[in-house]
């Protein structure tokens, strides 16, 4: 049992933190978020140079602990670059089931020259499972896909889509689709990120690896996204609490700083409790994956705690700030927005609870 980062991991954390804090203050972040793309290609190149865009599928770049460390820094600065959705998770899927020829494109992904997206979620799907309504059809050696995917995070700008679709003989397969072959309706999410609804109408598709059931790989990808989101949320919570504590020591009312009011400081202490519980569970998710254990139950456990802590911390961070907490100009509301978006991605807290309820009868004493 060891919760210490290695020297290389500390270096990666510090490098990422430096880059992002140099790049993004609340004002410059808003400027970038409000561009058409919603993020910066320049920052993207720099992330590629550090080796971040190949984490998890490029073995030299590192594994899940590195992803944990980097995503926490992304959450801390609310960096809008779609590292998870445009690179890491679809990249890991390609690396896991793709042919050698298909895996060749991962070099471009890691170099920041090709953008991916994992088109899996469909209308009506709450907690993502491998079963989908989008259909794959075969004619000779060629395949086409038909169906609707929404929301597809980072689907607005992707060059290549990794798409899940029901196979003619049962099971869910994975396909590569040139983004130009699908009808995309891009949009902005409420927290300033980007996504798209993507419709496939007999769109030409290439099986990722063999055209066989890829449910296991899809399940693993979902566990990876979940852990990455937990890591990002952790960074956002940490910064939301830091901002709040700082504000309490500076803002004066009734002639004294807000930190003189126990009704506020006691609540800030409870935010810290929520933060530490969230940290434990985010690390649990990451360390399990690093050990090769891609367990959806662990993902649900972590995401439930992150959902609860994120809700608590974001609500209290706003309340303890007062009115400025709900302005666009001040950052704390944007942290709340991001934490809320994360809770709505890949299953809400209630959805995670359903996963856990279904297993209550399978064991006596709950254990790690």
């Amino acid at each position, binding site marked *: *049992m*060891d*919760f*210490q*980062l*290695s020297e290389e*991991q500390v270096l990666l954390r510090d490098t990422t933190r430096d880059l992002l804090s140099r790049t993004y203050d609340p004002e410059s972040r808003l400027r970038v978020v409000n561009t058409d793309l919603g993020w910066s290609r320049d920052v993207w190149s720099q992330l590629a140079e550090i080796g971040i865009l190949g984490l998890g599928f490029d073995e030299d770049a590192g594994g899940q*602990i590195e992803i944990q460390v980097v995503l926490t820094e992304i959450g801390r600065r609310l960096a809008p670059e779609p590292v998870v959705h445009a690179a890491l998770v679809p990249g890991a899927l390609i690396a896991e089931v793709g042919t050698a020829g298909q895996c060749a494109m991962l070099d471009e992904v890691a170099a920041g020259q090709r953008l991916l997206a994992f088109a899996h979620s469909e209308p009506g799907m709450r907690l993502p499972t491998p079963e989908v309504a989008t259909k794959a059809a075969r004619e000779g050696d060629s395949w086409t896909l038909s169906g609707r995917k929404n929301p597809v995070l980072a689907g607005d700008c992707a060059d290549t889509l990794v798409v899940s679709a029901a196979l003619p003989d049962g099971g869910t397969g994975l396909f590569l689709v040139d983004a130009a072959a699908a009808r995309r309706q891009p949009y902005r999410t409420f927290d300033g990120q980007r996504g798209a609804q993507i419709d496939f109408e007999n769109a030409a598709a290439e099986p990722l690896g063999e055209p066989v059931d890829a449910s296991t790989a899809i399940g693993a990808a979902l566990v990876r996204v979940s852990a990455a989101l937990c890591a990002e949320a952790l960074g956002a919570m940490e910064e939301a*609490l830091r901002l709040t*504590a700082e504000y*309490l*020591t500076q803002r004066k009312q009734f002639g004294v700083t807000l*930190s003189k009011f*126990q009704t506020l*400081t*006691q609540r*800030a*202490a*409870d935010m*810290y*409790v929520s933060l*530490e*519980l*969230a*940290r*434990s*569970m985010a*690390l*649990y998710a*990451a*360390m*399990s994956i*690093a*050990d090769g254990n891609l367990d959806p139950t662990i993902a649900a*456990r972590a995401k*439930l*705690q992150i959902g609860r802590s994120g809700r608590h911390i974001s609500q209290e961070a706003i309340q303890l700030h007062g009115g400025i907490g709900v302005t666009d100009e001040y950052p704390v509301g944007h942290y709340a927005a991001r934490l809320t978006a994360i809770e709505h991605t890949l299953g809400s807290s209630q959805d995670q*609870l359903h996963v*856990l*309820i279904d297993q*209550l*009868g399978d064991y*006596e*004493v*709950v*254990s*790690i």
Partner: protein
Amino acid sequence: MQLALTPEEAAFRDELRTFYRTQIPAEIRDRTRIASEANRDDIVTTQKILNDHGLAVPNWPVEWGGKDWTPTQQQIWLDEMQLASVPEPLTFNTNMVGPVIAEFGSQAIKERFLGPTAALDIWWCQGFSEPEAGSDLASLRVTALRDGDTYLVNGQKTWTTLGQYADWIFCLVRTDPNAPKKQAGISFLLIDMNTPGITLRPIKLVDGSYEVNEVFFEDVRVPADQLVGEENQGWTYAKFLLGNERNGIAQVGRTKLRLAEVKELATASGLLDDPLFAARLAEAENDIVALELTQMRVASGSQGGKPNPASSVLKLRGSQLQQLATELLAEVAGPDALPFDAGDGIASPQWAQHSAPRYLNYRKTSIYGGSNEVQRTIIASTILGL
């Protein structure tokens, strides 16, 4: 980072797991699993067995019977003990007065007390709180005035847990009423409960149980060689003690067993099929997993000698989850929680009859050991800088 125990740690865990289940009598563990009150004889018997095997006071210095264990090993020792429903060594002896004597006592006082304290030949109780000194402990007023070779002790202590079994009491007393700061005039004094002038009065609790007491001192003469360390340095020793008091206070292992008990009974009654109840139980289980991982982080992180700031979370959250488990058990009991000690012919099972009293009794956990409001104040000031 590595979640799994090392092979050495896993072997250590397995050894203890076997030890607890084979060396501690099954009837003691069965009683402890379902008991709502401490059983004096079971605690004494168990601590003697542990002590005979060198396992009663691993947190003490090695020369006084301790083990040179890592914090992770200490945690495994405690977790496995709780999971096996083994009564823990008496905390007043092993986590409180023992470490203080070992750290600050004279050689003579160490030799006189540490052996019997580890073996539970002396049952200690804690004389800290007073009617006017609760969270504000430093405002305590029991006086101990030096008179030749003795101290003359007068005043009252309260909330003295299991004082009815105690042979000795360790007290914070005011030896210098004129000290410039109230913290400065306090000393740490060991007193035989059989000394003339001491009266014990039980405090009955809301659940009908008897576990705490008031202790009155009227012209009690205490030999001066029973002072620990230096006169007027007691506040320093008390802070050291209170830091150790948090050891194991999260009670993760026991709460896990309580939740398993809740699940077993709710399965039998069919309540587990109610999604509203299942959601509460699943969430409680998740909460205890998060706390357990936090405890693991604290244990593994304190190896550098500096405590992990997350340690302050353990008492606060641990007490809340202990309370939650009692609430869930009372929920399973439903109307069967109403009868109490109602006799053999009553259909309401014993566990159900004790569920609501235990729920009420466990409101204590967020009050003792530094109330949760005090814990929040510590977090706000020392961690958040507020």
